[in-house]
């Protein structure tokens, strides 16, 4: 599948990545080659094969419903750029 630069720009925007014009054209080639490989995989007949949700042949372990964590707000907030009244502050979000 041949990608266009607009696809790369959109993917970068969704992932909040800053991509320069030079980089963008490079990514078009790189990502197109990855997608070619996916196309190749898709040519395989997978009729009757269960989609794989995880490469490990194991199932999820469950934990008992117990509160095991203590309040570590101070430690965690030490690396936050801005806090007030126990809240993390972020650039204003407008709905």
């Amino acid at each position: 599948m041949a990608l266009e630069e607009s696809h790369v720009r959109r993917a970068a925007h969704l992932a909040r990545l800053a991509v320069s014009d030079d980089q963008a054209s490079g990514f078009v080639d790189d990502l197109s080659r990855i997608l070619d490989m996916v196309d190749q995989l898709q040519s395989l007949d997978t009729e009757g094969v269960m989609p794989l949700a995880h490469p490990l042949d194991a199932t999820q372990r469950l934990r008992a419903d117990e509160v095991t964590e203590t309040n570590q707000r101070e430690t965690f907030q030490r690396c936050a750029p801005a806090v007030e009244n126990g809240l993390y502050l972020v650039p204003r979000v407008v709905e």
Partner: protein
Amino acid sequence: MQWETVIGLEVHVQLATRSKIFSGASTAFGAEPNTQACAVDLGLPGVLPVLNEQAVAMAVQFGLAVHADIAEVSVFDRKNYFYPDLPKGYQTSQMYHPIVGPGDVEITLEDGSSKRIRIHHAHLEEDAGKSLHEDFHGMTGIDLNRAGTPLLEIVSEPDMRNAKEAAAYLKAIHSIVTYLGISDGNMAEGSMRCDVNVSVRPKGQEAFGTRAEIKNVNSFRFVERAIAFEVERQIELIEDGGSVVQETRLFDPDRDETRSMRTKEEANDYRYFPCPDLLPVVLDQAYLDHLRGQLPELPADKRERFQNELGLSAYDANVISASRDMAEFFEAVHSECGDAKQAANWVQGELSGALNRESLSIANSPISARQLGELISRVLDNTINGKAAKEVFQALWNGQGESADEVIEAKGLKQVTDTGAIEAMINQVIADSPAQVAQYRDSEPEKRGKMIGYFVGQVMKASRGTANPQQVNGLLKEKLDALL
């Protein structure tokens, strides 16, 4: 043109686990901001989620209660988007293999009829944190205590055709989750939230119209109001030659309208993929059987039993079975007094009225089921009459006495059924009311029935309310008619 409304609901239910879905942080409501947000909830590097067994069990119990297929294998996916109250940059959810498959719920409408609403599926996911938009020097405050709280999102089929059906469905879901004890169902605190999908189509047309999704519909009443507004808006729009845009709208209860939320943003693209940090969840039959064995009697079964075995009306059975607390209270009253109809009347009438006046829930009723049952027994065995019963009820409500018998004794409310005593009072009243007696005698026979009320009132007053009203009535009629 005749229009038909099509409604589907997505209900988010916060599961009443002690800890979060993927971490051991507490889910208790109302804690200081960010004191219950651990490294996993904050999405710090290197952390791994571990699934809470109780959240799985609760989802399965819901599934069993709505006759759904429970997935032997379910898978968690990442729903990717950026928002400050979602620090990981994705919400862990179940897109392709939800834990609960297709099921159904029976709703009861106001006219007593019922309808089956299909459930498309229900999946487990984590809640996000909260954004506080009050002004922090032009910034937004983030509280992540709620991040990672387990949610069960219940998605209905578009089976509802009007606002009443949608509200009845929401009530049915509320009733099921609270019966199961998997959520406190508190809509005001956000434990249960609802998004409504609404579209309209010309009556008779099979294809659905374009739908709008209304968010922030957080009470039973708002569901009806939001739908009413939205239906009118869409019909007007189409009839004026416009067309409905598929979009997210916000319900504003203060202005009673829905508003478009964001139009500038491109269509959401969540790029779901299986979460590599979580393995597929596999449930075996023995586990499902174990959970099935723990299910309580559910509202629909209770409703049916109340109607068929206890002889309650469809309306009474529906109202009483809607809340587990009320149903259990009613059953305790019934087992004490043995009369289902009377128990239902008292629970729905006097008791519910008093609870409403003081904004109390039935779980916090000052009168116990045993006390109320005993009180009803005293009416049934003619120890007290209906009027005195209300007085006893009030006294018990106010804590003046431990039991109905104690109050009856203390206040001298025991009903006078001694014919001689009642006759004496009647004779006195007749002797004291010559004018009324003359009036009674001179009036048309068919009007006398009404006039007897005056004399009954006087006798009841003379007995301080303790005379048996049926006896008073009968004896009075005899005595007055003897004077004709």
